[in-house]
């Protein structure tokens, strides 16, 4: 966007990202990324590929696995014995080392408490929801 024009008029639209000053974290990210690329430690393509892979994860994929288990007892058994293989079986390319599925029953309700240190299954579920982060 061209920033050269004077802002003497009222904009009818919400400001685009280009109008907003970078946060400290965004500025750090850009500086670090530029340095890593400049020094040949990582490529822009590698960063883009990782961002694209991260964008594939969504809670809908987990829901798809659960719905399949509801309608297919054999799949449910495979999901409970090896959740990673069960995800891959549905074409979901889980990259985490391991994945465990737990079943809720009328007498047992599981509450998964994730510390969000580094083990969130992003390749399956996407980025953690905003509400579950301490800083956001």
């Amino acid at each position, binding site marked *: 966007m061209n920033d050269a024009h004077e802002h003497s008029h009222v904009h009818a639209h919400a400001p685009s990202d280009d109008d907003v000053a970078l946060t400290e974290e965004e500025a750090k990210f850009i500086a670090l990324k530029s340095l890593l690329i400049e020094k040949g430690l990582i490529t822009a393509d590698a960063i883009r590929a990782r961002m694209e892979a991260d964008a594939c994860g969504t809670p809908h994929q987990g829901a798809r696995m659960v719905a399949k288990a509801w309608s297919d007892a054999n799949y449910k058994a495979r999901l409970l014995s090896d959740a990673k293989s069960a995800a891959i079986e549905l074409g979901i390319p889980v990259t985490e*080392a*391991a994945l*465990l599925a737990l079943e809720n029953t009328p007498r047992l309700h599981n509450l998964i408490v994730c510390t969000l*240190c*580094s083990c969130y299954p992003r390749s399956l579920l996407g980025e953690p929801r905003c509400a579950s982060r301490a800083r956001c």
Partner: protein
Amino acid sequence: MAAGAEPRFAVGDRVRILDLGKPGHVRTPTYVRGRVGTIERFCGLFENPEERAYGREGRERIPLYRVHFEQRELWPGYAGDAHDTLEIEIYHHWLAPEETP
């Protein structure tokens, strides 16, 4: 497999969580340290996050277990359902047989 990396505990074993007083990137919360639980399953062998977090070389893969606790044994005066339980994954070097003081 490196010596000492074989699973030492079986499902159902009673174990005490050690308090290693280790600073840094550890995955053993203070509220389970010193408490007694039951081995729920062996999860497999994984690199030790306490080493991996600092990029150290030559990291061996060590056993990880899921340990089962009664919530009322973890929290004094626990007001929730008496049947509430907690399962948490703990690396083997934080575990000892129950009788360990």
